[in-house]
């Protein structure tokens, strides 16, 4: 029942959104909340039911480990094949994009946490947005986002996934620009939209490659063909396709160099940051790469690119996060950094570990954002950590839940982050016999930084001396129930979800990886083959060198502790005008970090051209300047030259007219000139019907030719 | 001779409309019947509107000409026919002369396809509803011509307003009609029909009037049509082309006498025409109430009594009022007249009890009853509503009814599709 009507899950929020857009303006706030939150709660229940049924269904012998697919209809192209194209082997294939839904372990995980976290954030938003204008609009957008996201993760082909992909992009744009009267917000929205377009272009191209190369866009068929062994490892077309797909993922999941929109996206309301820019939408890239794992394992170059980009993003963003002062920006850079971790995991082939980190991250990052939102709420809109401090006992629930989340993200045992992060680090260390070991160091350093900036945030916000103004201090209050309850639920998840992936080395059974095995089974096989062919020690990961793993765990725990300690030392007593330790130690580095490596400025110089480099504009605007210059100097020059020549000829002819014609003939020349000019006049008479007459004459000629041919 | 009789009789055996059967004689007879019936209906409507409106407004209405003013419309008609037919000096004579005929022609031609019963229609076209919409839209031409040819400002503005109004509301109307046509395709073959008779038969086959189909979609579509049809006929509360306090009488300000009465005739027959469309599309046309639920011999019999009973009821009202007439020599003729009228009604009622007659006429009775309900609505609106302002009217047409119509159309289509694809694959 749940499984066959899986289409209801995305439909429910869509209905909610439709209700909001058509009738929202007239509805009471209570009704709006009831409709929107209700639809998500229903969707969550349906999702749970569907996953539960699926697990029962896929454990039957007939359908063992098969994905469940249901196709409602075909919306692009049709069975009669009007939109045919030729695949790479020359055979015609119909371009088919179905409204079809696919449920397998991978999408199950996304389905569960998207609806679950989404539900909590909806509830939270009823409290957070209670006093804002555009209440129905906000919930309409949120529901529309849920619809798009669910379409994205339940799609059974790339095209429908792309529909959801664009849908979430649109909703992200709308929600970032929710306070559209604020210039910065609308700018941030436009920025997010444009940067995402760059990635989407890559994704589209990649999709075309796949359609052309595989003749289908359905995941099941593509995976099947990829596993069939028809393609060699390192096939250049597949490499190109996967690289293009990864460009798309970079845009959506904010990886280098397209990460720049995410920090700016914090202009949106905080629940949006929590839902879209931390927990769900930004993981769409991860989902897409994981979904295409069968292709990626055929392209080692792409895998390496993914791993390296991921690792670089992780440390890059983490280092910026060290010095930011805006509480939401710190979390934003932290998100970028954690997404880097996920890609690192995907790149080294540890898909399950990456997905595991997505799962745990969704909970604790959502919790962090919601906590931050609660802090901002209690501070009446203040976001700068320099003006906070000593909030710990004034908003205890927020403080405690956020502390749990911080422990989780820093990787303290036994909180969720510890397990997922260690799984990634361990896989990075051990995969392919240590080929990626250099990235482990990057990841390790990132872990240290993560602990530092997260505890820096905690101390600056909740401990130290109060640094806010008096009236602000007076207004501090704990948030309402509708906000704190989701915080508590998420805090429980932040503790507990990690235990699903309790590693073997610690005596656990790692249920999570086992659950995902059907999806990544093929991937494991290909990797093994590759390992064999490249003469490396195969099956390192099979041996589970426990002692090494324990050592690594201890090291990362130590890093977390070290970061904590450093933060404690520096910010424990932070008072007004405290000094940043980095600024004190190496001011130039602090400066560079505070300005985010001047990347935005660089883009402004190089790509958009909003700023001049010396005297020259580069980028898009530069192109405009250049063409303007070309127009004034070259084109107009040519025109002027033509004019000059015309004038010259005019002078000559007038001279000729005056001296030669008038000198020679008296009446004849004028008549002659008129007769001579008549044919030319025929074409520019100015009487519209003359043109019609000429056309008719042409028609006469045409018919004449065909009659008396 | 014999062959002519055969020709005449041949139609009676067939189960078709005269047009479909290709029988010229009966087609002509039907045309005459419809024309006469329509004229009578317009006259009756004129009287009813005055009386009902008057009673709504706590007054009596016409009381002098004939008993309870029954002969008033006839007196008016005679007066109008005898009046001088003024054509303004500066008017464009030919067009001024032609305009009312075009309007009347458009309003009457529509009735070619109106199905008063499964066989009681002049003809049945397979593009019936399209034909009706098309021909009724021709009356805009007459209005524009009338307004322009009068060579006067008020008629011109009135004509522009009313034609703009009619053209805009036609769009919403068309959308509502399409959503009803979509419902006809919900059968095994999946093919719908545009034929008026086919539409009613589809309702019969599906066992429900389209107004209840996909509740509330059918109802909304019907509602859109019901609003648009009032605007389409320039009646209150959308009558601002005619009676806006600043436009005297709109496009027919300069008309008088016979030509004015043609406009009057056209307006009322257009009202009947659009009501017929509404009845056909949503209210099951000639079908009697609950034909599927309350079927069987007994119910057939009971329902076949309705026409006769109705006429007897009217006759009873006449007799009651006859008794209540003032006993005064001046009122003697009126009293007798009313009694005679009652007798005529009673006789008609009695004739209608003859099974052969009642079976044949029952369809027409139900159709006429439904149309009459609409006519009452028209009068009711006029007594109740203030007038819209022109911009509000346009806003209503384009910003309310059109989106609603589109939405209903899309929803109807998707529901129909879902019904076919998901629950009955």
């Amino acid at each position: 029942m749940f499984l066959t009507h899986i289409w209801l899950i995305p439909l429910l929020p869509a209905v909610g959104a439709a209700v909001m857009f058509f009738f929202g303006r007239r509805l009471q706030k209570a009704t709006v909340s009831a409709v929107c939150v209700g639809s998500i709660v229903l969707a969550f229940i349906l999702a749970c039911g569907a996953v539960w049924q699926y697990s029962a269904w896929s454990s039957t012998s007939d359908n063992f480990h098969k994905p469940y697919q249901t196709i409602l209809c075909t919306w692009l192209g049709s069975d009669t094949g009007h939109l045919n194209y030729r695949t790479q082997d020359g055979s015609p294939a119909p371009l088919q994009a179905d409204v079809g839904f696919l449920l397998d372990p991978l999408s199950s995980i996304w389905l569960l946490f998207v609806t679950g976290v989404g539900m909590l954030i909806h509830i939270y938003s009823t409290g957070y947005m209670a006093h804002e204008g555009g209440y129905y609009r906000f919930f309409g957008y949120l529901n529309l986002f849920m619809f798009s996201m669910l379409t994205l993760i339940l799609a059974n082909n790339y095209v429908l996934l792309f529909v959801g992909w664009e849908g979430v992009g649109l909703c992200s744009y709308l929600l970032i620009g929710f306070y559209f009267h604020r210039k910065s917000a609308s700018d941030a929205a436009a920025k997010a939209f444009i940067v995402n377009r760059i990635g989407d272009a890559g994704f589209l191209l990649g999709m075309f490659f796949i359609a052309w190369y595989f003749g289908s866009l359905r995941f099941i068929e593509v995976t099947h063909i990829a596993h069939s062994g028809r393609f060699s490892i390192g096939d250049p077309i597949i490499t190109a396709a996967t690289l293009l797909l990864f460009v798309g993922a970079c845009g959506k999941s904010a990886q280098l160099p397209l990460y720049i929109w995410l920090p700016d996206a914090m202009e949106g309301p905080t629940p949006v940051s929590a839902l879209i820019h931390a927990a769900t939408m930004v993981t769409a890239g991860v989902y897409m790469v994981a979904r295409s794992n069968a292709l990626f394992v055929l392209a080692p170059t792409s895998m390496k690119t993914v791993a390296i980009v991921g690792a670089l993003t992780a440390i890059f963003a983490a280092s910026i996060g060290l010095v930011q002062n805006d509480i939401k920006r710190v979390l934003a850079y932290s998100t970028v950094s954690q997404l880097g971790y996920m890609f690192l995991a995907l790149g080294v082939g540890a898909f399950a570990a990456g997905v595991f980190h997505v799962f745990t991250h969704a909970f604790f990052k959502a919790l962090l954002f919601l906590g931050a939102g609660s802090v901002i709420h209690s501070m009446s809109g203040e976001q700068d950590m320099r003006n906070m401090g000593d909030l710990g006992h004034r908003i205890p629930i927020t403080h405690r839940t956020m502390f749990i989340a911080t422990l989780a993200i820093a990787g303290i045992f036994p909180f969720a982050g510890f397990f997922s992060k260690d799984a990634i680090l361990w896989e990075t260390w051990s995969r392919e016999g240590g080929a990626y070991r250099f990235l482990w160091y990057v990841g390790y350093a990132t872990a240290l930084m993560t602990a530092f900036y997260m505890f820096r945030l905690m101390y600056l916000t909740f401990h130290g001396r109060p640094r806010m103004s008096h009236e602000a201090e007076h207004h501090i209050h704990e948030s309402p129930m509708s906000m704190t309850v989701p915080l508590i639920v998420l805090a429980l998840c932040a503790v507990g979800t990690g235990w699903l992936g309790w590693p073997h080395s610690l005596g656990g059974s790692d249920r999570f990886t086992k659950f995902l095995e059907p999806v990544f089974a093929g991937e494991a096989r290909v990797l093994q083959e590759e390992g064999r062919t490249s003469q490396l020690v195969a099956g390192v990961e099979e041996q589970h060198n426990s002692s090494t793993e324990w050592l690594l765990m201890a090291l990362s725990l130590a890093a977390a502790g070290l970061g904590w300690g450093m933060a404690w030392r520096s910010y424990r007593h932070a008072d007004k005008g405290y000094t940043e330790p980095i600024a004190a130690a190496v001011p130039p580095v602090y400066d560079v970090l505070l300005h985010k490596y001047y990347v935005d400025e660089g883009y402004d110089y190089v790509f958009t051209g909003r700023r001049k480099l010396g005297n020259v504009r580069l980028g898009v605007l530069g192109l405009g300047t250049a063409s303007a210059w070309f127009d004034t100097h070259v084109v107009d020059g040519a025109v002027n030259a033509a004019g000059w020549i015309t004038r010259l000829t005019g002078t000559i002819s007038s001279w000729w007219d005056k001296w030669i014609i008038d000198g020679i003939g008296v009446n004849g020349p004028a008549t002659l000139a008129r007769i001579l000019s008549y044919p030319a006049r025929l074409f520019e008479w100015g009487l519209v019907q003359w043109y019609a007459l000429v056309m008719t004459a042409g028609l006469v000629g045409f018919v004449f030719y065909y009659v008396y041919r | 001779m014999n062959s002519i009789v055969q020709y005449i009789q041949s139609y009676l055996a067939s189960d078709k409309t005269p047009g479909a059967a290709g029988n010229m004689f009966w087609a002509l007879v039907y045309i005459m019947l419809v024309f006469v019936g329509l004229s009578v209906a317009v006259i009756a409507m004129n009287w009813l509107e005055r009386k009902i409106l008057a009673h709504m407004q706590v007054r009596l209405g016409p009381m002098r000409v004939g008993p309870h003013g029954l002969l008033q419309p006839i007196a008016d008609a005679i007066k109008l026919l005898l009046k001088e037919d003024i054509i303004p000096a500066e008017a464009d004579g030919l067009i001024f002369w032609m305009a009312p005929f075009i309007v009347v022609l458009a309003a009457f031609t529509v009735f070619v396809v109106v199905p008063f019963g499964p066989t009681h229609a002049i003809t049945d076209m397979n593009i019936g509803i399209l034909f009706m919409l098309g021909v009724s839209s021709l009356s805009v031409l007459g209005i524009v011509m009338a307004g322009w040819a009068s060579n006067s400002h008020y008629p011109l503005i009135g004509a522009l307003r009313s034609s703009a109004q009619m053209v805009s509301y036609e769009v919403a109307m068309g959308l509502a009609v399409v959503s009803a046509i979509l419902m006809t395709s919900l059968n095994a073959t999946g093919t719908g029909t545009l034929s008026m008779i086919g539409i009613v038969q589809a309702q019969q086959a599906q066992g429900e009037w389209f107004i209840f189909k996909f509740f509330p979609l059918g109802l909304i579509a019907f509602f859109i049509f019901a609003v648009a049809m009032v605007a389409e006929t320039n009646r209150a509360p959308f009558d601002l082309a005619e009676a806006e306090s600043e436009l005297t009488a709109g496009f027919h300000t300069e008309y008088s006498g016979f030509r004015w009465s043609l406009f009057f005739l056209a307006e009322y027959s257009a009202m009947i025409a659009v009501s017929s469309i509404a009845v056909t599309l949503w209210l099951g046309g000639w079908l009697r109430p609950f034909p599927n639920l309350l079927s069987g011999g007994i119910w057939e019999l009971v329902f076949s009594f309705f026409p006769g009973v109705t006429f007897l009821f009217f006759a009873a009202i006449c007799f009651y009022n006859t008794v209540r007439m003032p006993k005064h020599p001046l009122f003697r003729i009126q009293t007798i007249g009313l009694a005679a009228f009652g007798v005529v009604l009673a006789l008609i009622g009695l004739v209608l009890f003859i099974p052969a007659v009642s079976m044949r006429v029952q369809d027409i009775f139900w159709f006429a009853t439904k149309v009459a309900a609409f006519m009452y609505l028209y009068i009711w609106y006029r007594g109740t509503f203030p007038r819209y302002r022109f911009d509000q009217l346009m806003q209503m047409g384009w910003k309310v009814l059109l989106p609603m119509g589109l939405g209903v159309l899309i929803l109807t289509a998707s529901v129909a599709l879902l019904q076919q694809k998901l629950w009955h694959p």
Partner: protein
Amino acid sequence: MLHITTLHYLVLGAALFLLGVIGVLTRRNVVIVLMSIELILNAVNLNLVAFSRLWGGLHGQIFAIFVITDAAAEAAVGLGILIAFFRNKETVNIDEVNLLKW
């Protein structure tokens, strides 16, 4: 009487077409010129439907429907231009349409 063949329709269409052409070529009133264009389009439609009847397919009728659609678009735009033109020049004579821009 004669049997009516496709050729009859074609001749009728040709006659209408010629009337339209004459109207377009000779009248000065823009409105009438536009109406003559409608005549031409209708002549073409008649041919299309006649051929559709001849070959027993419906493609000709579909083309006729498309032509009617185009005629609607043409009329709307043409009359829009006409109104703009009239507003500026206070005339509807086609002779005065001799600027590309105003």
